């Protein structure tokens, strides 16, 4: 089982984190050293892929669909993503996740208490995920594309990324081990309560605050101070 190094928690190792994510979540960038990759083109292709997914899902989207939507040739896509459709899809997913985390980080940064940080992380993540057009399209119409990442071993890299993201925001309040464990706990809660009809609607800050008050804060109070992990 992959263990993420402590460096990831400081945000220094975001590429390190990528390297340990499942292959489907990791884009392989092309090009010999020195070649300037046009990241604008990459982003345009990824954005086009996402629009295609929102219309017909992953399986039924072809590279030609993406090329047409991006207004470029298949050759251009292959130049940017030699791995083809799989590479484009993985890269698009990765880019969306990182963008979500950027926005989430900004929201969490504005808080000044632990409870507020937790609530901001929970509601922010829930709203971003459930409001994401491509993701919700897949959840409803092509669940096989996303379910492998929400259960069993497939969930572990998602949890690990959540931990590397949230831990630094919790460290002002908690020792490192507890911060890492709490980050993972919170990520699990977002996944667990994201279903319609769940007793807590974590997109609602009041519900999120209730869940945090009932379960998370008492859990933290009951925590024995942990030794620093080396």
């Amino acid at each position, binding site marked *: *089982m992959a*263990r*993420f190094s402590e460096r990831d928690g400081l945000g220094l190792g975001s590429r390190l984190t990528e390297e340990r994510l499942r292959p489907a979540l990791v884009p392989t960038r092309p090009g010999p050293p020195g070649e300037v990759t046009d990241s604008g083109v990459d982003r345009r292709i990824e954005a086009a892929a996402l629009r295609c997914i929102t219309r017909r899902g992953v399986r039924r989207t072809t590279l030609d669909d993406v090329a047409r939507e991006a207004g470029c040739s298949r050759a251009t896509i292959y130049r940017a993503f030699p791995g083809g459709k799989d590479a484009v899809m993985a890269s698009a997913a990765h880019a969306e996740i990182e963008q979500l985390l950027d926005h989430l980080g900004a929201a969490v940064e504005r808080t000044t208490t632990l409870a507020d940080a937790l609530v901001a992380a929970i509601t922010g993540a829930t709203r971003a995920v459930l409001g994401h057009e491509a993701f919700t399209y897949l959840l409803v119409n092509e*669940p*096989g*594309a996303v*379910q*492998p990442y929400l*259960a*069993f*071993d*497939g*969930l*572990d890299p998602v*949890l*690990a990324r959540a*931990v590397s993201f949230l831990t630094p925001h919790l460290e002002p309040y908690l020792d490192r081990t507890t911060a*890492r*464990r709490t980050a*993972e*706990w919170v990520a*699990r809660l977002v*996944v*667990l*309560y994201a279903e319609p009809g769940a*007793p807590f609607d974590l997109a609602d800050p009041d519900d999120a605050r209730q869940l945090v008050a*009932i*379960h*998370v*804060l*008492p*859990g*933290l*109070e*009951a*925590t*024995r101070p942990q030794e620093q992990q080396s």
Partner: protein
Amino acid sequence: MSANESTRLRVLAATLRCVERWGLEKTSLEDVAREAEVSRATVYRYFPGGREQLVHETVVWEVGRFFQLLEQATAVESTLDGKLRRGLMFGHRAVKEHALLQHILATEPEALLAELSNAFPLIEQAVRGYFLALLRSEPLRPDVSAAEAADYLTRLFFSYVGSQGQWDFAEPDAVDDLVRTQFLAGVLAERPG
């Protein structure tokens, strides 16, 4: 057990064996009938919904057996705390060591996960009932409802049994911390001293 029940079980067990041999997608009703040594008509009698119903009920049956084993493994513990600790350790290992489950997750996860999501509300309800019964004999925090607590414990339990995250379930101290803090701190009344 009646003859009907035993035939139904025979078909379910045969389905599992076929899936082990050929995978989920490639297992046909005919394969199952042959393996169970019954006619197709017999299979349809017990599973009028055909292959779809057969696969669904086989999954529900196997998951049910998993939780039965879990219940047996945790029976030796008398407290909720003890049952959760043992349940997490045993359950996590049982998932990892379930050869058929791991094989399908590696080769054709989509079909199985779709089945498990369909079966999930039923399974969740059973586990929730189990926790609810246990909670009735424990002192709860004053403003906590047993129903909400049972729901919370069920969700969190499934999450950890399925995916270990950063935790090492072979470490009793870690499991003790996990259960005490994340599962029970918000549920059970604080013990004095």
